[in-house]
């Protein structure tokens, strides 16, 4: 359980951040300068907030009312930085065990060999960090943080310094780590796919204030605007279970509630739900069930709500068997169709526009 309520000033920037999360991985998303790193620094103890408190799994890190402030090295925080920050003068092995020989921490339940195997570090234990690639460095840095036997992992854009190839190389390691170790994680990223992939709770941050903090399925569709140079249209995350592969056409059938959705990819059979990301402008609506379409996915939904989006568009919030779907249509089409709350309609989603995370 993460319970943060802090406020203060830093240079000319004032922040007041309060949220709670009991989920495994809590994402923090916002523009640069929104105060994302400030939160992590406050949790790690590098920054002392003027007011408020931080409680992690029942341990009070700081509370200005009680005059309590745990020192940086006593907080059991595993910090993974954007730049791996490995110690250049010692081997990978000594880097991994730094918290034991320098920090006098026991590694607790986290065994050295397990971490090395999990992150695939066997081959470069004897090497110096300088000789590793960016992705390998970051894996070592994650291992080093894990082996400090932390009570919480803080990840400050751990993948943003890497190119696409390296990111997708590390992603499985991150997932395996999250799956294997029961640790709360605070995860900062600019990349919505990373967030959608790893996080189950999302904190939306703007100008040092929390805009929204809730389950990722609820917060994710609220993200719209210019982030890291790209304009982001609203998109939703849908959980879907595996149904069957069709190797002939190289597609996979998934199930959302009682309805079927097809994605252009051969996904492995798995017990766990897949997460689909669908942007609102790739969803069209139809009042009756259409026939003779190239669009494969026709799903029955219920109109929940509408939101104006600029002068010419409207976002329609739809209920897809308990999950949220969103369609961005023109205001003209909205008025022509005369949509009402509670009305049943058919949503059309192009299969190629469905991103499987």
């Amino acid at each position, binding site marked *: 359980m993460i319970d943060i309520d802090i406020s203060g000033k830093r240079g000319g920037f004032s922040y007041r951040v309060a949220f709670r999360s009991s989920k495994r991985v809590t994402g923090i998303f916002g523009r640069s300068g929104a105060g994302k790193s400030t939160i992590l620094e406050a949790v790690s103890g590098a920054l002392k907030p003027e007011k408020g408190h931080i409680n992690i799994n029942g341990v009070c890190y700081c509370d200005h009312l009680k005059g309590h402030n745990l020192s940086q090295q006593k907080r059991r925080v595993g910090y993974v930085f954007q730049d791996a*920050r490995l110690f250049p003068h010692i081997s990978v092995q000594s880097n991994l065990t730094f918290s034991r020989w*320098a920090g006098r921490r026991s590694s607790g339940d986290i065994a050295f060999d397990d971490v090395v195997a999990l992150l695939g570090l066997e081959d470069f234990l004897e090497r110096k960090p300088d000789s590793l690639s960016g992705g390998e460095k970051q894996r070592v840095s994650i291992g080093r943080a894990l082996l400090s036997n932390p009570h919480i992992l803080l990840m400050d854009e751990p993948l943003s310094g890497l190119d696409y190839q390296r990111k997708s190389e590390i992603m499985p390691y991150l997932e395996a780590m999250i799956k294997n170790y029961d640790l709360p994680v605070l995860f900062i990223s600019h990349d919505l796919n990373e967030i959608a992939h790893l996080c189950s709770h999302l904190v939306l941050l703007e100008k040092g204030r929390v805009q929204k903090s809730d389950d990722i399925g609820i917060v994710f569709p609220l993200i719209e605007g210019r982030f890291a140079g790209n304009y982001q249209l609203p998109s939703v995350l849908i959980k879907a279970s595996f149904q069957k592969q069709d190797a002939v056409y190289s597609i996979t059938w998934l199930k959302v509630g009682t309805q079927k959705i097809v994605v252009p990819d051969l996904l492995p059979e798995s017990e766990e739900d897949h997460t689909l990301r669908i942007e609102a402008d790739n969803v069209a609506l139809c009042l009756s069930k259409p026939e003779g379409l190239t669009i494969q996915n026709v799903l029955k939904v219920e109109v929940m709500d509408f939101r104006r989006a600029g002068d010419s568009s409207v976002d329609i919030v739809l209920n897809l068997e308990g999950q949220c779907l969103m369609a961005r249509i023109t205001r003209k089409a909205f008025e022509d169709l005369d949509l009402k709350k509670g009305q049943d309609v058919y949503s059309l989603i192009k299969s190629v526009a469905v991103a499987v995370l």
Partner: protein
Amino acid sequence: MTFFSFVALSDGEISALFLSIKVAGVAVLWGLPFAYFVALLLARGHFLGRGFLNLLVLMPLVLPPVVTGYILLIAFGGNGFFGKFLSENFGISFAFHWTGAALASGLMAFPLMVRPIRQVLESIDEKLIDAAKSLGAGYFTTFWSVILPLSVPGILVASILGFAKALGEFGATITFVSNIPEETRTIPLAIFSFLQSPNNDLQLWRMTVLSIFLAIIAVFLSELFTYRSKNNQRKYHD
């Protein structure tokens, strides 16, 4: 006259050479820990009087060496405050003794030793220290495990530069401990003595060439280590 007898050093010259090496070696060994501590204060400390300390450290570089020697004479001479204290309590005397030559040359070399250490300490990424703290290392452990090993290149450069400077120290040494053969007559003082009397051209040339040779080795080594440490840092920051 054979070539051998032409380049062979006389007893006085050999004694000057070994005395110089002893004096400079002791000056560097004793000076380094102090230089490291001062460099640490200047590079990473935040305290009142930091500017004053910096000025004090630079003083031997800009003061006339004869003034530094005179100050040493007043403070560490037989009747000086520190001189009396040290000889009465620890049996260490500096006046007209080779240890005084080591003190004088160590003091003159001090600013040259502080500078490279300070530079390497300032170049250590603060973020690495944050990382060490987040892994549970306290102030002293961070020092031993991260700061000290990363400052080794600076310490090497400081030793070489300090040694070379101490070898060549003249003004403060002759003022403080005079020019006593086999006690305080180092290479520069020997050259000075040869200059004072006629018909010593051969010895003068030999000592001059020896000095140039030692200086070139020192500068070469210090450049080598500086280059290496810069290279390492570049690799790290990539």
